[in-house]
């Protein structure tokens, strides 16, 4: 996935679409940002300067689906194999029904891409009607996170099977990329050198967050602002 921060206006359509697609639960008060469940979080960055040199930018953060050798930071630590990276697709999945809720993966993830179900998820009765059967609602006491909408991949593969196509060659779009009004999110197969994402990942504007940790995120960002680049990683200078 590549997210163009020059195009991103921080509107949040990606995050809303994600919540709706993935049956993310919500509560009357969502202002406790340390306990909220969000697969796609919007961070606000600023250049640290005074008015009128001040500038702000939004940075949407899905799960980075870290590609670090052998294990992602989170999959390495899960004691029960509830979160595993599928080496075929590169997607780091998290199976809520296997999760015992030890939160070790959350502790290990520097991107805060994982949220814990501190409460029993509860929807207003009338809104239960908008829950999608494509993604199973989680329960209290487990961790959840962005899955790159892998259920959409499964659907696409099934469609290919029925139509006699190669299920391994399918492309699909996750909810966030689909919703983005500015087309800032590009999704595709990074391993395919001809894909848009592979091309954009090599753009001079491209960077990843916390590269120095060698987590090898599979989410790239694009920005022409140096001050945004600078905040992508810790820097001693």
């Amino acid at each position, binding site marked *: 996935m590549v997210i163009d921060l020059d195009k991103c206006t921080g509107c949040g359509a990606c995050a809303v679409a994600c919540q709706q697609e993935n049956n993310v639960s919500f509560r009357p008060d969502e202002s406790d940002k*340390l*306990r909220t469940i969000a697969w796609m979080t919007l961070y606000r960055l600023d250049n640290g300067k005074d008015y009128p040199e001040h500038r702000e930018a939004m940075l949407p953060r899905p799960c980075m689906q*870290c590609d670090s050798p052998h*294990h992602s930071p989170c999959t*390495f630590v899960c004691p029960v194999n509830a979160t595993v990276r599928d080496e075929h697709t590169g997607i780091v999945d998290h199976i809520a029904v296997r999760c015992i*809720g*030890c939160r*070790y993966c959350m502790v290990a993830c520097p991107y805060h891409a994982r949220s814990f179900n501190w409460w029993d998820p509860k929807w207003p009765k009338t809104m239960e009607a908008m829950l999608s059967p494509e993604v199973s609602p989680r329960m209290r006491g487990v961790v959840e996170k962005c899955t790159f909408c892998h259920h959409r991949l499964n659907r696409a593969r099934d469609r290919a099977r029925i139509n006699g196509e190669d299920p391994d060659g399918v492309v699909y779009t996750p909810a966030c990329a689909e919703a983005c009004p500015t087309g800032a999110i590009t999704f595709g197969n990074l391993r395919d050198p001809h894909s848009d994402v592979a091309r954009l990942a090599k753009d001079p504007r491209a960077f990843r967050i*916390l590269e120095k940790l060698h987590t090898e995120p599979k989410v790239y960002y694009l920005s022409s602002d140096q001050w945004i680049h600078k905040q992508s990683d*810790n820097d001693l200078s």
Partner: protein
Amino acid sequence: MDKALIPEGVKRCPLPVFGLWMLVLFAVIAWGVYAGLTVLIKGLHVTGLNNYFGFGLYICVDLGIIALGAGAFFSGFMYYGLSRFFPQLKELHKIINLAVIVGFCCYTGALLVLLLEIGQPLRGWFGYWHANVHSMLTEVIFCISCYAIVLVIEFVPIILENRKLDAVKPLHIFGHNLHEIMAIFAMTGTFLSFFHQGSLGGVPGVMFARPFAYREGFFVWPWTFFLFTLSAMACGPAFTALICRLMEKVTRKQLVDRSVYELIGKIEGVLLLIYLILKGLDTLYWALDTAPGFGLKLSDFYKEPYGMWLLVAELGICGVIPVILLLTPQARKVNGLLFLAFFLDCAGIVINRFAMTVEALAIPVMPFDQWAVYIPTWAEWAPCIAMLAYGAVIVSLSYRYLPIFPRERELNP
């Protein structure tokens, strides 16, 4: 009935006083159980934990208490294993029972608290059934539960020494046989404990995307693996000694020879010194190589309320000072200084465990992220305090009804 259970030739406080004491402890336990049930029924939102602080007081206390409970394995190791080569270690015989009991309390208590910490306790057994061999937590789960079983087995012969139980012939024989093979269990326990103390250290150390906690290491283990084991050895017996001293104060009796304390002091002093040197080297390497590799400098890791004072307290006040005290024969002779040193030793290790869990998580890794502060709630304090009360119950009962101090009769004629 009560009288009949008390070991021969020793004096214990009157039953009503003991009963009252038990009542107080049970009240605390009841409070903890209530808190625990609240957590289990309502969910973890009653705690102060959050998405940034996935680990908090529960884990911190668990890590701390297990390190302190290391007296069991390490005293056992010294007594059953090393005393062949260093006869002076035979002296530990006088305190080994207490070490086992304290260890038993620490480990079983920690397991109970751990049950609260996981979001889905009914799936806790997945840890055994669906184990991920790469996870340090898997190592922890297996080793701790195995070691807890070992401790139970080690505790049983002590229980069987109760006057009434000992009178039952088969039990007596059983207990005796157990005693015979105790060395095997002690060594098994030692092996397990070496391992899981280390894997507890591995828990933070392997988090390669968490610059505060991550350490490079040897083979599959990060340095924290070895440091945790070493630090546990350097504080476990000290903690046993502290408990013993506390019991002496409460009962106003001398329970072990003072030489035992001094021996422990000497051992702990040496171990703590070794630990401190290694920990210092580790810290330096981490601060000067590992962290800069991540683009961070030491001062980036410390910000109020988790300021630099933590490092000073851990390594300076609770590290260097006890080492000096313990390695100075004159200081070892002075009760106040000796036990102060033991206390600082234990406190330093607990601070270490706090830093490796809570502080490690407060640090924003993404530069645009925020520092977060963690404040535990009553639902976290209560079970932890109750766990201490539970330990007190076990120790009190054991002391009252079991002959755990072989020298008690002689020392208190």
